[in-house]
């Protein structure tokens, strides 16, 4: 039983990181990454904001009684997530200053209506026991944060020839990548590459399992 629980926790964590990554696989949180994550600092701030909103929002929404009809529940979910934006604002203002809050613009409060909070809470998180829900949620948040910071860093390197405050010369620059279309194209290519890697890994696992099954069958026959 405990072994089974461990497997579920592990798979729950990795689900959000890879198979159900909300940027590269399901694409439910593309907009902020495409538009705001155009340098390292912005992407790190966005990741922090998202972590606070998603963690507080989903955890609180998890406890909304199922007796309330979904039509009303979805409004309550959005309102709770809207309230979770306040600590995110305050944290960002504390760590990065008001300028960063302005840089993130409308994309920070828009996290409140992210399908991760409005839909996944309903279809996934509320069906799990609290500890497992937290693990899964952390997986989803980490999945978003890793992609967000990776995209931000890549754009920082290609646009500003720097990562944060560290300057270096890559020999060329592509300023257009800091725009929305640049972000969309980068995410599209990254999503395709990620899916290919994921599919290859999955196929390799299936082949390995099949091989193992045949080997066991042979041993049994012998």
């Amino acid at each position: 039983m405990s072994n089974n629980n461990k497997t579920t926790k592990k798979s729950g964590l990795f689900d959000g990181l890879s198979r159900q990554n909300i940027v590269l696989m399901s694409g439910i949180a593309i907009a902020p990454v495409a538009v705001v994550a155009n340098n390292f600092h912005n992407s790190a701030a966005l990741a922090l904001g998202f972590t606070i909103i998603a963690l507080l929002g989903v955890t609180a929404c998890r406890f909304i009684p199922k007796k309330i009809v979904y039509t009303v529940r979805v409004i309550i979910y959005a309102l709770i997530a809207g309230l979770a934006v306040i600590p995110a604002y305050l944290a960002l203002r504390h760590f990065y200053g008001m300028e960063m809050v302005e840089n993130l613009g409308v994309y920070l409060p828009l996290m409140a209506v992210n399908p991760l909070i409005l839909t996944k809470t309903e279809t996934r998180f509320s069906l799990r026991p609290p500890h497992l829900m937290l693990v899964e949620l952390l997986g989803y948040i980490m999945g978003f944060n890793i992609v967000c910071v990776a995209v931000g860093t890549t754009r920082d390197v290609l646009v500003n020839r720097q990562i944060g405050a560290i300057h270096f010369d890559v020999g060329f620059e592509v300023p257009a990548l800091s725009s929305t279309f640049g972000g969309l194209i980068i995410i599209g290519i990254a999503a395709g590459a990620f899916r290919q890697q994921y599919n290859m890994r999955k196929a390799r696992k299936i082949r390995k399992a099949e091989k193992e099954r045949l080997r066991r069958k042979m041993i049994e026959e012998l």
Partner: protein
Amino acid sequence: MELIGSFISAALLALFLQNAIYERALGINILLYASRRRQDVIGFTLGLCYITTLSSAAVWCLDYFFGDYKHYYLIVPVLYILTVGIIYMASLLVLWRYFHDLFKKIRKFVHLTVFNCAVLGALFLNAQLGEGILGYIGYGLGTALGFAVAGFLLYIAYERLNAELVPASFRGMPIMIIYVGIVSMALHAFAGYVT
């Protein structure tokens, strides 16, 4: 006359120069979902038109009366969501009471039309760009029409984007995002791009 001018210019701004999808990627996840069928594009556009136009007018009242409050920006998300929520509930009640068949048809995905980045984004941007109540309404309407343009452009390319010629890993969401990015780049070229 000046008010009508601000309505038209706000609508055109939201439709072309600041298209919700191509300029700000707002509601792109909903667009990817809606662009699969023509009925969905039309349905989502009508829903967005309705909700953004009404909410924009309501939000103008909030901004007008409470906009000067020092910490207004902290409570804006909750206020805007509450506004959209009230309009959503009232509309659903009317539909349930008088148009029961329509209510049954749309109830499964109506929340997707209402609670998404395109609607909330239009309201937030209204506060930054809109001038006067007609400017707000114009921007809200323009956002929904901009969504319709983007939805239609993606719908007509949908089959080709998901054809067998496209590598399997890129089929679906990745290639659609790249396509939206390329169309966005083309629109940037029209608007003029400064590095």
